[in-house]
């Protein structure tokens, strides 16, 4: 199992649509992935879970990834957050 963290930079935080983007990304990997904020841990493949974290701009997200593609998955997800979900400018 690997873990790592990233800080949310999108101005409006991880709202529903970005939660959807994150889930879409996580679902591409076979590993089990959880994400937590302030001790609240959810399945990174559930949009209801991720949006329910209420991760505002500046919040730290901790990912734990377990499975055959864990390294790749962790790197991908952290990049996604760091790059502010790439296309999202707000």
């Amino acid at each position: 199992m690997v873990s790592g963290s990233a800080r949310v930079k999108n101005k409006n935080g991880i709202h529903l649509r970005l939660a959807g983007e994150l889930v879409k990304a996580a679902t591409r990997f076979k590993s089990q992935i959880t994400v937590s904020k302030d001790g609240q841990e959810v399945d990174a493949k559930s949009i209801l879970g991720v949006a329910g974290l209420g991760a505002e701009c500046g919040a730290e997200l901790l990912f734990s990834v377990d499975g055959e593609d864990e390294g790749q998955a962790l790197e991908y997800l952290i990049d996604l957050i760091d790059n502010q979900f790439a296309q999202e400018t707000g």
Partner: protein
Amino acid sequence: MDDARAEQKERIFNGISASPGIAFGEAFVMNVEDLAVSEEHIAPEQVDAETEKFLAALAQTEKELQKLVRSLEDEIGEEHGKILDSHRMILKDELFRSETIKMIKGKKVNAAYALSLVLDKVLTTFANIKDEYLKERAEDIRDVRRRVLRNLLGQRVEGITSLRKKAVVVARTLTPSDTAGLNKKYVLAFVTDAGGSTSHAAILARSQGIPAVVGLNDISKSVRPYDDLIVDGITGQVVVNPAPETVAMYREMQARYNELEKNLLTLRDYPGVTLDGHQIELSANIEIADEVEDVVSHGARGVGLFRTEYFFITRNTLPSEEEQYRYYSSVVKRVQPDPVIIRTLDVGGDKIARWVGDLREANPFMGWRGIRFTLARKDIFKTQLRAIYRAAAHGNVKIMFPMVSVLDEVRLAREICEEVKDDLKRQRYVIGERPEIGVMIETPSAVAIADLLAREVDFFSIGTNDLVQYALAVDRGNAKISYLYDTLHPSILRLLRDTVAAAHKNKIWVGICGEMPGNIYGALLLLGLGLDEFSAASYLIPTIKKIVRSVTYDETRSLVRKALAMGTAREVRELVDRFIHEKRPELREFHPEAAS
């Protein structure tokens, strides 16, 4: 049943009038999420069937959303479609599916109850989110729950698409996605818990010419389906299960109102000209392009204020040049050769956080808004101006800058206009060559330098709503001091007089856009002050026209001379009352007290 009916007491709710008129009808209550879903126990052999029902409802909802995504993308742009895409992801959410199925199996309960429990738990976590914006995403989850429940419960729950006969639509709130599937010819009136006069329901109602009352707090919970309602869009009252006397009283009011409206609309094709031949342009304010039909049907001459911010703030990303071009053009083409005055983006920091970052300001009304914002964000400004110049090729467009307080702002904005025009020409676009360029007069500073501004623009439009609040230093939303907010205050009349004088001395025209011309006092005084144009909500135009056509310019000028010598707003009001009483008693029907 009859006994139950007899027991139902008449109840009155007070809200905000959002669209005038009086309607009678049965309630069609739209908010499924607030209907209690009851717990029903099922036999073990029913578990599979109940699970199937749940999955079928999800599949049905998925189909609906797919259809809606396509129609919304066509109607109002891709961004709205994307939001519904995340609704589709909620349907596919493993947590949601597996927990609900587990609940059906484990507790042996009906699917509707199981899924409500699961989503309630999710909503509890949302309630704990501190960030207000993220917390509000709970609305999306309620929206999905409502859709699934509707499919699960079939005919037992009202969905807006199931509106098959005329009714009063009662809802907590109405979004464009709610009303997308609505058959508008069955709607007698809108009644909502939330919202102000610029909410979606209000705008839709005005464009359909039906009454609406908003801001009723919790009426959607108190009203039951098929309750009888009277909606009074004039005073903002809703009567639930009215007594026969009340019905009779409102029938009479409705007849009077309809008669008045009919008489007013006979003036539709006549100009706004006084008995002694002084003409004034009567045009309409609009928030969204769809309202243009309303402008035409009420006999307004063009659009005197096209507020463009609504198009920007109802989405998550900036609209592209093409989108804006198509949007503005639709209005320009519909009313040409009459003019459309397009006001460039007038947003305050509070409204635009979504795409420019957090802009919370201690005092947003004195903050980064209007031209101050667009001059700082030239990318946004230029894109909008490009779209406006291109739309100007299709008719009579004028450009107006909001919130101007210093001369440099006008000069800079005009320079950018020239730049944009040159770029467009180089790129071989067809554009409107010389749209008039004007400014809003809404800060006391702009009034003080009106003579300087008048030399550099083609017209003025006075925004009374803001000018009054800046000049009197009164926030009219503040209940403790709102009594001070008075458009008839002598200081306001003087500011208006000076602005008109500066404009006319420099041979430019001056109009007014705001609520002031909408009542008899404002209409008479503004006429006498020499304004060249009034722009107001479409539904007010027939009334204003009737007032203008009932008096002479001469007598309103002399009325204004006397008003300018008065010391208080009360004295001004009494003066106008005396004028109506002695000189034009036929105008008494427009007096605010005539309504009661």
